[in-house]
């Protein structure tokens, strides 16, 4: 394999404590190495920024609900005209629900090399893996959802921790999943009865278990299985005024639990798109930011990480396994609504949404996300996401970076709002002058996410031995002064390497790489009880035969990277 030497760039690598120093980065045989021979191809990175490839911890980029979004929003492509194929690129298009090809190309353009699909309905895991397989360049994994799964609800209700863990290990293996995701615990199941769980103490109909028991049980199962990532929660009561109290109660469930794993992960709970869960007030009338309370709590608890879910003020497509929330949203904006019940496992909804800077609620949502990120004391634990496409398309990360790095850019945004005073009045953002550095941005976008995923031995840093995933941006941190330059440079990487292969050369995609699918194979003790329960449920309830359930690796996951874990006792 070719050797490369990236010379004279400004390197930002928080893991090694490199903060903008001029350094050379060497790549050989797919890895970052100390040095290369004289025949190595030299990339001149003078005046440019060099970072490890970006790692996205939460985005909805593959699977049935993304495809429902594509199918029922033909108008979405009016926002981003289809580009014809050229060179190694296939035709690509779509804005909030892009094609799989565009997903791969645009992440690469932003210097991202690893992306986690945030919610995989186990029953439709094959569809998720088909789309992942067809997404070029980036390594991907997917989180199957467990928070409303009948097996999990029954085992946790009966206090059967070992059975819960055995079932989870079986499902991860069947679906080729990477982590435990929990969406609106109990609430999506309650939606099957036309109900919801808006606090962590609302009992789930029939199962008579509370969201608090589900969250705690899943955290414990996660540590029992010693998974690379922690339990990944989207808590109850998303998007409602006053929900910060539910969020704090959920986060407190992790108190006193410490991480058990061999992957360097320290947290036991990752709270996703926390911006949507940091709202004060009682109605949309007195709606206000409670970013301070949430950020303070996360700052104080070393065993919690979060990603933000920045609202980017675009017309987008919301999609989540939080079925009742999507119905609620459709009642608010009267636009089209898709809803699915996924047998014994979960549900899902899709609704288009226009985040308008002229609507003060949207303006405030925009401000709350930035406020949380700017209140962070340790950016390793506050991650960059837009909950793509829920709060905005992932292609806006460079714009979010601009807002985080420039108070001037934030002021310009405020000034364009119809209700500027009202928005400024109800968030702490307007008085904040903190501007994040590229060092902190590198934490939010690669070092921190890689660590939280238990992947710091592969990604997120330029330490020799790690994957040769390197992004070079045409951004000179010593001379740049215009915030617009941030958005431009970080949206169009000058060079990108994935596993040591040159993917972007001088701004042009020249290779589709050799993408891998990451999944976790955990071995647990043999458990005849769980095997029997699974067989019974398939015979009695599922519409498919148990033999047709598994995601066959050879077909759906042609290039797997498997994490083998022994959790037998």
């Amino acid at each position, binding site marked *: 394999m070719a050797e490369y030497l990236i010379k004279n760039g400004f390197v930002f690598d928080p893991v090694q404590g490199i903060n903008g120093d001029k350094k050379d980065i060497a790549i050989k045989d797919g890895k970052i190495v100390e040095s290369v021979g004289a025949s190595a191809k030299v990339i001149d990175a003078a005046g440019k920024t060099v970072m490890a490839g970006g790692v996205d911890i939460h985005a909805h980029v593959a699977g049935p609900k993304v495809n429902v979004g594509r199918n*029922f*929003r*033909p*108008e979405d492509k*009016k926002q981003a005209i289809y580009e014809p194929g050229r060179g190694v690129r296939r035709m690509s298009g779509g804005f909030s629900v892009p094609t799989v090809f565009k997903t791969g190309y645009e992440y690469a353009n932003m210097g991202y090399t690893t992306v986690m699909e945030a919610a995989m309905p186990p029953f439709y895991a094959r569809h998720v893996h088909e789309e992942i397989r067809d997404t070029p360049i980036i390594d991907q994994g997917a989180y199957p959802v467990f928070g409303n799964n009948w097996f999990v609800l029954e085992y946790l209700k009966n206090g059967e921790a070992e059975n819960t863990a055995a079932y989870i290990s079986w499902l991860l293996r069947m679906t080729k999943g990477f982590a435990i995701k929990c969406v609106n615990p109990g609430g999506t199941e309650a939606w099957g009865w036309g109900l919801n769980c808006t606090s962590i103490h609302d009992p789930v109909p029939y199962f008579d278990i509370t969201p608090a028991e589900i969250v705690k049980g899943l955290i414990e199962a996660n540590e029992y299985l010693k998974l690379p990532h922690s339990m990944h929660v989207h808590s109850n009561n998303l998007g409602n005024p006053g929900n910060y109290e539910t969020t704090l109660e959920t986060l407190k469930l992790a108190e006193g639990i410490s991480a058990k794993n061999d992957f360097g992960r320290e947290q036991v709970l990752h709270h996703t798109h926390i911006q949507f869960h940091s709202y004060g007030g009682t109605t949309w009338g007195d709606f206000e930011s409670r970013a301070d309370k949430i950020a303070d709590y996360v700052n104080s608890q070393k065993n919690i990480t979060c990603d933000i879910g920045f609202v980017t003020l675009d017309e987008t497509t919301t999609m989540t396994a939080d079925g009742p929330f999507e119905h609620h949203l459709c009642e608010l904006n*009267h636009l089209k609504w898709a809803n699915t019940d996924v047998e014994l496992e979960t549900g899902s909804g899709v609704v*288009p949404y226009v985040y308008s800077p002229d609507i003060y609620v949207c303006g405030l949502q925009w401000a709350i996300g930035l406020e949380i990120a700017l209140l962070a004391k340790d950016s390793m634990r506050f991650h960059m996401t837009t909950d793509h496409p829920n709060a905005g398309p992932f292609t806006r990360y460079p714009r979010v970076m601009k807002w985080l790095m420039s108070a001037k850019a934030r002021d310009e945004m405020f000034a364009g709002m119809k209700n500027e005073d009202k928005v400024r009045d109800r968030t702490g953002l307007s008085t904040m002058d903190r501007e994040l550095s590229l060092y902190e941005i590198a934490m939010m976008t690669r070092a921190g996410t890689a660590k939280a995923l238990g992947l710091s031995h592969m990604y997120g840093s330029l330490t020799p031995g790690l994957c040769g995933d390197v992004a070079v941006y045409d951004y000179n941190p010593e001379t740049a002064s215009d915030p617009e330059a941030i958005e431009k440079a970080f949206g169009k990487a000058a060079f990108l390497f994935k596993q040591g292969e040159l993917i972007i050369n001088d701004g042009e995609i020249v290779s589709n790489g050799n993408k891998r699918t990451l999944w976790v194979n955990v071995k647990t003790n043999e458990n005849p009880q769980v095997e029997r329960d699974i067989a019974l449920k398939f015979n009695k309830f599922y519409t498919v035969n148990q033999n047709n359930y598994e995601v066959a690796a050879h077909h759906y996951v042609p290039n797997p990277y498997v994490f083998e874990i022994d959790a037998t006792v």
Partner: protein
Amino acid sequence: METVTLTIKEQPPLFLEAEVFNPDALASKSAAEIAALPLPMGKTTPVVGDYFTVTGKGGATAAETKVVVNGDLTKVKYIGAHMSAGEVVINGNTDMYVGAWMTGGKITAKGTIGHFAATAMKGGEIIVEGDAGNYLAAAYRGDWRGMQGGRIHVKGNVGSDTGTFMMGGEIVIDGNADVHVMTHADGGKTVIKGNAKSRLGGQMVRGEIYLFGSVDVMMPGFNYVGDVELEVEGVKAKFAEYIGDTGERHPKSKGKLIYGKLYKKK
């Protein structure tokens, strides 16, 4: 005002996407420059001069530019689409998307126009001497924002699905309308001087339909509430007033529910 005259020389084998046949794209351009503009066809990109003779030139701005297109234009799409000012005259029958997304100016079509004319139109005026196709003044596929402003006058008949997702503006049809008028509408006004078939105002939230002729089948979701004297398009007459679609959500204003209205001339 300067005039650009485009006359079709030969019929293309496939449909031409004439997104440059509007005053905004042709303003301040000479005949030679216009002849060199792209005119996509299938996967190829011929230029205007390949299929059209060009005379005259564009004015300094769109508002000072008049575009005249002559000949059999049944294989030409997008004439007058996205225009914001100025004037377009279409001497012949043409295909889809006439005046789509237009925000201002005036289009006069001497013949018949194709489907999806005035898609999501926001302003300006379209006059059609012949007939219009399906989905006149509707939303783009999947979108919920149909015609929002401006005025359309069709002197002939219109196809189906006129004014789907209409939110504002005005359509006057001298002839007959096929099925589905103002489906899902949330505002706007349509006058049908001829006859209608069925499904007028299905799932309509707000807006007004005035029908001078007959309707084959009335929507069951519309309720008769009484007769009113109205002057519509210069005609004073008694109309039967219906409200609907009662199967759809309706917003409240000052404590009262707002309905879509259907007025049928007695």
